[in-house]
């Protein structure tokens, strides 16, 4: 069992938990994720390690409540215990050799982006962060991004904060004005990652996306997380989660994320009932 030590509500549906998990804290690098099971009847869900403290053995997870399991986790409080956590899983991302990097986070994807922002910054690269959300109160981690970026841009769909529009609008301007960007990293909803990928493909700039496929074991055993990258079958949990954006079959990914929509809606409505 893994004890929750602290909780913070970043936005109404985005929560941050600090959890005691020494073995994982010791080993995590930017880009790794964990898989957890909230309780004995729970499913296994993957979440990025947003932050870690090697000395104290604490990891941070940040998640958006989108369905049953994330809601259940969101209801937990300091002192409560998470049944199982395994990790760190997946490849961490390779930071060597990049001078100027633009990192884009959409929605809770910003949480997944943050450890990479920090890692590139600490590595000495020039870091430009762009974060986007539907509306102002969903913008998260602004301060954290500020501390580890040379520049931060914010976009909201409704214009209630920062640029009105999409993160890709800002990216496009940057790509036009600044010719020395050598890497773009995008993490967020699949349509956003696809839009970024399409844009950077035009400018022929190396782009990495972190894929959020459905997972079960996270060790390469089940194949639920398979994606097509460059025409080949890859398992996101062991071959990824980061891939060359220009090679990813996004249409297939979007479809596969809907595999269990009917079943998910069923337990989700159960959870809503429990709430009422």
């Amino acid at each position, binding site marked *: 069992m893994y004890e929750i030590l602290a909780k913070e509500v970043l936005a109404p549906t985005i929560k941050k938990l600090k959890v005691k998990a020494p073995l994982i804290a010791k080993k995590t690098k930017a880009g790794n994720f964990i898989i957890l099971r909230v309780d004995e009847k729970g499913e296994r869900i993957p979440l990025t390690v947003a932050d870690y403290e090697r000395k104290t053995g604490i990891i941070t997870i940040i998640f958006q409540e989108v369905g049953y399991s994330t809601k259940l986790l969101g209801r937990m409080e300091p002192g409560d215990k998470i049944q199982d956590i395994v990790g760190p899983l997946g490849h961490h991302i390779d930071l060597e050799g990049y001078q100027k990097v633009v990192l884009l986070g959409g929605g809770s994807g910003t949480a997944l982006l943050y450890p990479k922002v920090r890692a590139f910054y600490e590595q000495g690269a020039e870091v430009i962060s762009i974060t986007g959300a539907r509306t102002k109160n969903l913008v998260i981690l602004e301060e954290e991004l500020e501390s580890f970026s040379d520049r931060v841009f914010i976009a909201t769909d409704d214009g209630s904060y920062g640029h009105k529009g999409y993160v890709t609008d800002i990216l496009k301007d940057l790509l036009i004005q600044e010719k020395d960007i050598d890497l773009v990293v995008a993490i967020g909803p699949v349509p956003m990652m696809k839009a970024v990928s399409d844009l950077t493909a035009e400018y022929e700039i190396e782009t990495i996306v972190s894929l959020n496929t459905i997972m079960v074991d996270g*060790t390469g055993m089940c194949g*639920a997380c398979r994606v097509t990258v460059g025409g080949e079958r890859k398992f996101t949990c062991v071959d990824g989660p980061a891939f060359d954006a220009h090679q990813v079959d996004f249409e297939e990914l979007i479809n596969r994320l*809907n595999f269990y929509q009917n*079943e998910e809606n*069923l337990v989700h409505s159960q959870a809503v009932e429990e709430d009422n």
Partner: protein
Amino acid sequence: MSLQKKKTPMKEQKAEKRIRNFDEVPFGYTKEEALVEADRCLQCKHKPCVEGCPVGVPIPQFIQALKNGNPEEANQIIKSKNNLPAICGRVCPQEEQCEAKCVMGIKNEAVAIGRLERYVADYNLEKETAESSKSELEKLKIAELTDKKVAVIGSGPASLAAAADLAKSGLKVTIFEALHKTGGVLRYGIPEFRLPKTIVEQEVESIKKLGVEIKLNVVVGKSITIEELFEQNYKSIFIGVGAGLPRFLNIPGENLNGVYSANEFLTRVNLMKAFKYPEYKTPVAVGNKVAIVGAGNVAMDAARTAKRLGAEDVYVVYRRSEEQMPARSEEIHHAQEEGIEFKLLNNPIAIKGEKGKVKAMECQKMELGEKDNSGRRRPLPIKNSNWDLELDTVIIAIGQNPNPLLTANTKDLETKSWGGIKVDSGQKTSREGVYAGGDIVTGGATVIQAMGAGKKAAQNIKNYLLEKSKK
């Protein structure tokens, strides 16, 4: 009294009833049935049956103890060689192993060794107390080994067998398992109706009682490396990580929604208990028409599971013929009784979809040609014979490769071209102090073969540590 020619039958749930539940199919012998069956054993002096058992269970001796009305003693006799008898009695392919060699099988049916083993094990699972075995255990301890640390990676049958034997000699054994539950394939692969998980739990408990510590949620190679285990003073390491990487067909449409690897399908249902969805939160979607590609034990398990989840039509699609199906005949028979339809001599060509979901599978009819190198008649495609099988779900059960997660993250551990770990005849790998066994060495095999390898490795680990302690 003349000798009963046939095996004493084992009662089982009726097919119409069992396809609506996940309860175990055969009930196991009653005491009376077990005694009748035990009487069929001729107590052969040369014991050919024992040779057929990969771990050398003293078969006539345990049957004799049973006949003498002493099931506790029978259990101890079995357990001297096999730590998981309740499991092996259920899932061993006895017809190819111990029972294949039984003298009774020459003219009549072999003695039902597996069923008797199951009877003895079940009888004692209920009775077993920690006390009864303590004094026995003291005797097995080896002074030079006591309290030295050994790490066992994975908790499938190879690892459980190795851990038990190592612990019995007084070694301090820690098992590291990637999943949140122990047992490997016994837990996530073989379904409840063939091997109830309470049995796996009880068998694991009895191994814990030997002093084995179990750490779950640890992926060796990721959470901790082999180097770090040595740094933490583990003196030797056993690797039993299995062959868990699912193969796919490499035909169009395999990434449509509705296509599963057998591993994913069975893991969702067994490990995650999706058959109790929505009480348990892991979903599985099976629909009404399901095809399983392949015809081994895994395919039969997937087919019978799909039926129990409510699918109306379940097909096994296989490109060879009935005689060539690799599954145990008992399982094929069970599947047939449960209404699984066999579409033999059919090769999947493509999976077709509509709105991102499986709609049909295109199959090509095959016929048997000349014998190939393996002595099996090779299936050849029949021209213009393609047809569509309408489906909601396709489950691919054509085998597993070794999972490269550990080997890829471990230095100096030699592997074979197909990914299996290289070992010598004593299960020793290319790294000093590191041994391996089970499916990660042989590719997909059987529970008892994996256990045999685990036991052999344990013996050699003990020898290695004894040798070292002398220096």
